[in-house]
């Protein structure tokens, strides 16, 4: 009766919900034991305009892995390994080496889920040197699922997405390059609308589900998205489906709605365009409450 267990490598902030702070609690709430390796130790995310603290050193991250290897068998202990924000190529290099070690040593291993955190809306927020490292990691053959946003996906596939046709092309190019069997692009803009795109190589299927957007920016949304996807990917036997994508989007939407409502109530401002901290704790019921079976999201035919 061992419970679901995850290793999550991402950032830590004292205040707010990005990185591991947006990943650990939701997964715990869904019944996961989550072992967290923190790649930063910041007071808050940069969206506040100021933040203090420090990145973890790559030595520390390496030491934590060594410490774990002494007391447990990583390949057997975890059902999933999740990698998220790493502030430097040195830390990502350590993660890459550790993963290679674990996956080469054993037949049985966790599902590796890589969120290639590079940037958003045309802007990088990590060092450029991180890009070739992500290409290496994605190309190892060990990655089960990756969850880039559109910017990251375009950067990694080398194809700009402007139409259904170029989306298909980007997916094909990405697969040809990295052979990652499952891809979820958190949001792709086509004809002024946003879609969440899923690709399953084994089923040879490409899905696009329309996102019911809220006109507001939410910091940490991508990390929470990856956590919810990871949970459902596991629960669905490591297979993507249209249903899975819809479920994730509906749950995420509820969390964001609740966050916006609370923010509006507290600040008495009803024109909020940026929620700095999604209310992961206050909206926790949205993670597992039953969804209305009669409701479904619009699907785009591809």
């Amino acid at each position, binding site marked *: *009766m061992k*419970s679901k267990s995850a290793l999550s490598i991402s950032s830590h902030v*004292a205040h707010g919900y990005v990185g591991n702070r947006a990943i650990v609690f939701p997964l715990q*709430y869904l019944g996961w034991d989550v072992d967290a390796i923190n790649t930063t130790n910041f007071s808050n995310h940069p969206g506040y305009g*100021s933040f203090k*603290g420090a990145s973890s050193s790559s030595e520390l991250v390496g030491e*934590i*892995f060594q410490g774990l290897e002494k007391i447990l068998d990583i390949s057997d202990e975890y059902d999933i390994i999740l990698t998220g924000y790493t502030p430097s190529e040195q830390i990502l290099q350590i993660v890459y080496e550790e993963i290679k070690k674990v996956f080469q040593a054993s037949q049985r291993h966790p599902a590796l889920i890589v969120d290639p955190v590079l940037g958003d809306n045309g802007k990088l927020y990590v060092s450029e040197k991180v890009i070739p490292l992500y290409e290496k990691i994605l190309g190892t053959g060990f990655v089960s699922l990756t969850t880039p946003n559109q910017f990251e996906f375009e950067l990694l596939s080398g194809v700009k997405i402007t139409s259904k046709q170029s989306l298909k092309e980007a997916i094909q190019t990405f697969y040809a390059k990295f052979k990652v069997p499952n891809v979820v692009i958190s949001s792709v803009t086509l004809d002024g609308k946003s879609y969440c795109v899923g690709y399953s190589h084994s089923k040879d299927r490409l899905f696009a589900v329309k996102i019911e957007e809220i006109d507001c920016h939410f910091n940490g949304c991508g990390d929470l998205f990856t956590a919810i996807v990871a949970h459902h990917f596991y629960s669905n036997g490591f297979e993507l489906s249209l249903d899975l994508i819809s479920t994730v989007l509906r749950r995420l939407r509820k969390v964001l709605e609740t966050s916006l409502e609370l923010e509006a109530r507290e600040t008495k401002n009803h024109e909020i365009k940026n929620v700095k901290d999604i209310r992961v704790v206050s909206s926790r019921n949205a993670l597992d409450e039953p969804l209305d079976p009669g409701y479904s999201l619009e699907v785009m035919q591809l």
Partner: protein
Amino acid sequence: MKSVLSVQSHVTHGYVGGKAAIFPLQCRGWEVDNIDTVQFSNHTGYGSFKGRSTTSEVVESVFQGLNDIDVKYDAVITGYIPSAPLIELICGNIKRLKEKKPDMIYLLDPVMGDHGCMYVNESCISMYKKILHEHFIDIITPNQYELELLTNSTVRTKQDLIRSVGYLHETFRIRHVVVTSLENFEFNNKKNVLYCAVSDSKSGKRALFEVPVIKSYFTGVGDLFSALLLDRLYDLTRNGEDGNAEFQLWHAIIQVLNIMSKTLHLTRSIGIENYKQNQASNGKQVHDIESHINDKSMKFFELKVVQAKPFFSYDGMDDFSPIHY
């Protein structure tokens, strides 16, 4: 919405420090900010661990960053802090947070050791005393040994307890003193029980609670206890005088003891089951389980904090009752 700052250790694997405290508080609806005093792979009970203490510079910088964005808290909880300089720095920052918001509740768990054995440097004792002299602590949760260290006394009898707890109330002006586990204590001569002692200087109420010992290999129990206690005492400490103060205090403690008991029983039963499965997969049968619960099987007995989620909403009054002394 209630917000709390938790300052304690972080381990990647297992449940001690922040890993034992944060999730239960979040399940109780607290927005929990946290500063990690160490980043270790696991707790020391495994015989090996790697990682580092957070440097004073980083801890100070994180506090500054929080101050820059003007975060305020309804409560603060501190646990394991590895050195005297870090204790001074952290508590100094908490004092400033309290000056900014005087009704903020501060629970200090003076984590120093257990059963006569210290796991921090001795200089931490005098540093904690120095901090306590500044009178901004609302709740303190020492174990028996830590109570002795803070009061320079031996606590074995009811009289010792009254004297040392009184000392914490008077000298340090701490309202709530909760001694989490009196194990070596002359009272009633019962076997296989320990006592939890509660004292509120405001209402003048004090009581002992008898707690049956659950045999297992436990770590992080004190950290979970303090977090649950903060949650349950918070309203009591903040609100003004209430006719039912005594009832409310007992209610709070009894709920914490119930949640602890349920969590520890669950930890033991899941631990035994997983251990037996593990042994069976190696072709070994386990006959006398009690003799197997030791340093070698301890990894199966990490607190089942995540699995205990349903218990955190417990609000009954079962099983425990105050013994007035």
